[in-house]
Every structure is written in C-alpha cells, then in structure tokens.
C-alpha cells in the first residue's frame, strides 16, 4: 500500500490528534489542537485545488481562522484566568491512552475497509480511517480527562473528525451549512467558556470528575 502526499497530510492530522492523548499539559494540548486544525484547513484547501472548487479555499481560511486561531486562543486565555494547567487523567492512565489511541487507529482501518467503498469521495479508505480515528481519539480524550477544558477539546476533536469525514467521503456539504455548523461550534465553545468561570467560582476547581452532587 503506497500513500499519496494527500494521504500523508491526512495521517499527520490523525497523528497530531493522537499526540494530544500523550500530554496532560493543557497548553500543549491546545497548541497541538491548533496545529491539527491548521492541517485540516490545509487538507480542505488541497481538496479545493484538486476539485477546482474555489469556495473550499474560503472554507479552509475561515476554518483555520476559527479553529486554529480563535478557539485555542480563547480556551488558553480562560485557562490562564481559571488556572489548572495540567490534568491528572481519569479512567485510563495517561501513559496508556496514547497506545490505546494507536490501537484504535488500527481498528478503524479494519472497520474502514469493511464499510462500502465510496465512489465520489477523495481519500477513500485512508481518509475514512483517519477521520474515524479522530472521532475515537476525541472520545478517548473526553473519557480519560478530568479537567473541564479537556472535555471541550475532546468534543472539538470529534467535530473535526466528522468534518474530515464529510470532506473526504462526500463531495463536501454546501458552504452555507459548513458555516452554520462552525457558528454553532463557536457559540458552544463560548458558552462552555462562561460556564468554566462559573464552575471555578462555585466549586473552586474545574475537575468534572468531582461534579457529582446531582443524583437520584
């Protein structure tokens, strides 16, 4: 199996996401997330080139601006004010979560080959593998981390995986919809940011594994 340069770009996206599993420092995590989003924007622009769709360049630019620029900056400034730079990890030890992420990448490859092949999409099984890998990596991030910000980052990685899936497996959603989805995401991150302040104020920490007051 030989990889084209586009496939290599896609693999870099998945690898930066898996690297996020290996660090507990939230600052590093956010930087990796920014890099990872930038690579996705680059992949979008690449597709715009190969498909001769100039609109995709605009999508890529906005994507980079929002996901590689504003969102990491916003979350980072919140972390600076709220404190809590590193995460102790939860259900799975941090040292183990990266190997699990890599194993899941392999499992996703098997899964991708079993799914019906796509006729129109670019990237084929490879794109499918890496997109699914982003989704599982994001889920792992959400499951293995205690600090509230990491839950938001995990959610954003899942969202990126779905975006990559739609870009490589379909001919891309209409631009208006992409923008709507991006807007939703932006609002969600901002509301989560406000809530983070409130959690810090009320609980004096942002460790969600200790948010257990509500139960039957």
């Amino acid at each position, binding site marked *: 199996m030989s990889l084209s340069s586009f496939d290599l770009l896609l693999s870099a996206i998945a690898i930066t996401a898996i690297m996020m599993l290996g660090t507990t420092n939230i600052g590093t995590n956010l930087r990796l997330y920014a890099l990872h989003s930038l690579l996705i924007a680059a992949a979008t622009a690449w597709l715009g080139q190969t498909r001769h769709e100039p609109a995709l360049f605009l999508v890529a630019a906005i994507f980079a601006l929002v996901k590689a620029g504003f969102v990491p900056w916003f979350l980072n400034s919140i972390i600076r004010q709220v404190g809590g730079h590193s995460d102790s990890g939860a259900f799975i030890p941090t040292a183990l979560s990266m190997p699990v992420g890599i194993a899941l990448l392999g499992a996703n490859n098997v899964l991708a080959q079993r799914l019906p092949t796509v006729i129109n999409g670019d990237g084929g099984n490879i794109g499918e593998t890496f997109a699914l890998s982003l989704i599982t990596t994001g889920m792992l991030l959400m499951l293995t981390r205690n600090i509230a910000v990491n839950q938001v980052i995990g959610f954003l990685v899942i969202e990126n995986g779905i975006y990559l899936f739609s870009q490589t497996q379909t001919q891309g*959603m209409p631009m208006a919809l992409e923008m709507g989805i991006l807007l939703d995401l932006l609002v969600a991150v901002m509301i989560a940011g406000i809530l983070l302040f409130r959690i810090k104020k009320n609980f004096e920490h942002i460790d969600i594994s200790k948010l257990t007051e509500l139960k039957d």
Partner: protein
Amino acid sequence: MTSLLLIAALPLLLALGAMLMPFRWVRWAVPILAWLQLLVLAWLTWPVLSQSQPLLRLTADFCVDRLAALFMLLTTCVVASSLTHAPYYFQAEMHQLDQRHVRIFYAASSLFLLTMTTVFACDNMGALWIAVEMTTLVSSPLVYFDRTKNAVEATWKYLIICSVGIAFALLGTTLIFASSQQALAGSGSMQITDLMRRASTLQYQWLHLGVIFCILGYGTKAGIFPLHNWLPDAHSEAPAPASAMLSGGLLNCALFAIFRITQIVVASDHRGLTIDIVIAMGAVTAIAASLMLLRQHSFKRMWAYSSIENVGIMLVAIGMGSGMLFFLQAANHSIAKVALFLVSGNVVQASGTKRLNALHGVLASSPVWGILLALGALSITGAPPFGMFVSELAILVAATNPGYWPVAVALLTALSISFVAISLHVGRVVCGAAKPGFASTGSQLASSLMPGLLMLCSLLLGLLIGPQVLGYLR
C-alpha cells in the same frame, strides 16, 4: 422566503425587546407577543392545517407540512404558557433576582422559541442539525438561571452531553448525505423530501448506518435510555417555567428530528431493521424510566423521569410510522407536563424544598394547587377522561395490530408501573397534614391560572378527540 422571515420576526424582536425595553414591561410584553406569534403561525400555516395543500414550501431548505405546522403551534403554545406563568414564579424571588438575569431568561426563551420552531420547518438535514444544536445552546442559559452549584453542574452536563450526542447525529447526517451521492452519481442531496423520493436508490448500508447514528444523536437530546443522564438534572435544576419549556417543547423537537430521519428509511425498501431499533429503544426507555420513577426522592426529578417514559412511548409511535399518533401523544404530554411543572414550581417555592419526603399536605395548605396536582397526575398517567388516555390507548392498539405484541406488553407494564409510582409520590405530596412554614407569596389563584387552563385543555382534548379516535379504532 417572506414567510420564513415572518416566522422569525416576532421571536427575534422579543429577544431584542427583552434586553432593551423598560424592565417592568418585559414580564407582560414578552408573553403577549409570544401568544401573538401563535396567531402569526396559525395564519401562515393555515393552508396546510386546513389540508387545502399538502406542503407549504418556504425556501429550498425549509418547508412545512401538516404535522410540522401542528408541532409549531404546540411548541409556541408551550412557550407562551410558560412565559405567561413566569412572572408569578419570579414574584416570590423578585427581591433577590438580578434584573439582568431575568432579562437574559426572557431573551433566551424567545430565541429558544425561534430555534424550536425552526426545527419543525427544516427540510434540509444539515439545517435540521444546526437548528437542534442551536436549541441546546440557547436553552443552556435557562438551565443556568439560578447560578447555584447544582445549576452550574446541570448546565455543564446538559451542554457537553447533548453537544457530543448531537455530534453523532452530524456524523449520521454526513453518512446519509454520502449514501445519496453514491446513488445519484455526482450530486448528493440533503433535502429530506428529495431523499424520501429517491429513498430506494440510496446506498442502503450507508443509509442504515447514518440513520442509526442520527437516532442515537438526536435520541441523546430526547433522553432515551441509557443516554438520559443529563435530563433529570437539567429539568430539575432549571426554574419551573424553563423546566416546562424543556419538557414540553425541546423533547418534541428532538423526537421530531428522529421522525423526519426515519421517514427516509420508511420510504426506502429496507425499512425493517432501523424501524425495529426505534420501537425497541422506545419500549426499553419506557420500562427503564418507569422503574426509575419508583425510587425518586425529588419532586421535579420525578416529572423529568415521567417525561423520559413518555419519550419512550412517543418513540414507539414514531417507529410504527404514525405521525399523527406521535403528535397526539406529544400534545397530551406537553400540555399536562407544562401544567405539572408550573404547579410543582409553585409548591416547591412555597415549601422551600424539592425533597419528596419533606413535602406533604399541599391540599390542606393550598386547595387549588392540591387539586391541580392531583388532576395533573391523573392526566399524565393516562387516566380517562384526559387526552393522554386516548393517545396511549391508540398507540397500544396500533402496536397490537402489526404484531408488535411484546412492545404492547412492555408499554402496558411501563404504564402500570409509572401509574403506581406517580400516584404514590403525588398522593403523599397532596395528602397529609399541612406543612408548617408553607408560605406562598402573591395570589394562589392567579398562579394557578395557566396550569388550570392547561388542565382544562387536556380534559377537552380527551373529551373532544377521544370519541373520534376511539370510533376510528373500532
């Protein structure tokens, strides 16, 4: 296009007005305009309501059919009733409320109304997803209203769990989009009516996978078992009018999204599996929720679990492909549950506790609220002659027809258990000696106006529609 703008105009105006107009106007102007919105919607959707035309197309991505129009009216009714009651709720806490927080509450409610109405008008799967996600975002300030520890915890869970759940619906949407590209060689479609028309040519493996992801995703927002964890928290920590809107409005939106997606499968040649999943999920949800109803300690959480049980029943109706049964059950549930949440809010406020074992003697302290609670409990458990009895009976009969016997048995079990559980809990709250320190501010009669009217609606629904439906069943 103009009709779409007309639908959006009043709620947007309301949201703006709630933030800008003099504070003493807000409490009355917002509900009045919300009722006006009901008239606007009824006027706009009259062609489909009177069945003179099957589909009202607003733009390429938005259209309204009869079911959507009915749901729009129901949702607007729910929001307007809750907002009409809200001043009585806030009255008791007025001295400790921040004006800005109340303004944000009304503004978020107006946007909530707008996004929920939009969900029903979506003909595009992507737009549907955006609208459903927006409902989460604009309703999180409502859950967050009290700004206490518990409220913050509930809001965080609500935002994160629902957003991640909805993310899977986006994956499902993408998969369905992919399935349409394979069939039509080149141009994919996200338009639901278009997908339904070409359902048999869609790549069915992708379609099934996509629909299952969509059901899971939107199901998280509807509170299907076992993805329901956030729901009791959010519904019990939100202020009573917001709980009423979440339970009576939002759940219908999520279920409607599931209904729209399953319609595509129904139209295709491969309907079996996915539809069975919906029915099975509904039955399991109903049973699980009714069992959890038994061991409740909090008054408002109990109503939240009762909502989950009803979501299960509605899912069964959706799985059987009956839009009208789904609407009938949704309308009866919404009306009764809004009334219950509003009265329960009064009771909780007056007695200062949500704990079921600390609540007693409401009938002795406040006869009006006691009677309304008892009537509401009868109505929500499906006792005749209330509307719920008719719709639940119709769903049960419909379930026995095509041979879904196990489902009918499961639903009957769930209904019986929840009847016992709710009667037991509400009986204890209503009866007994008056609670010392039960202090209601303002007129008890005025704060019973909206719940009372809603109970009357529920009764009328049963009396008016009941004979027709029962005659049809026979």
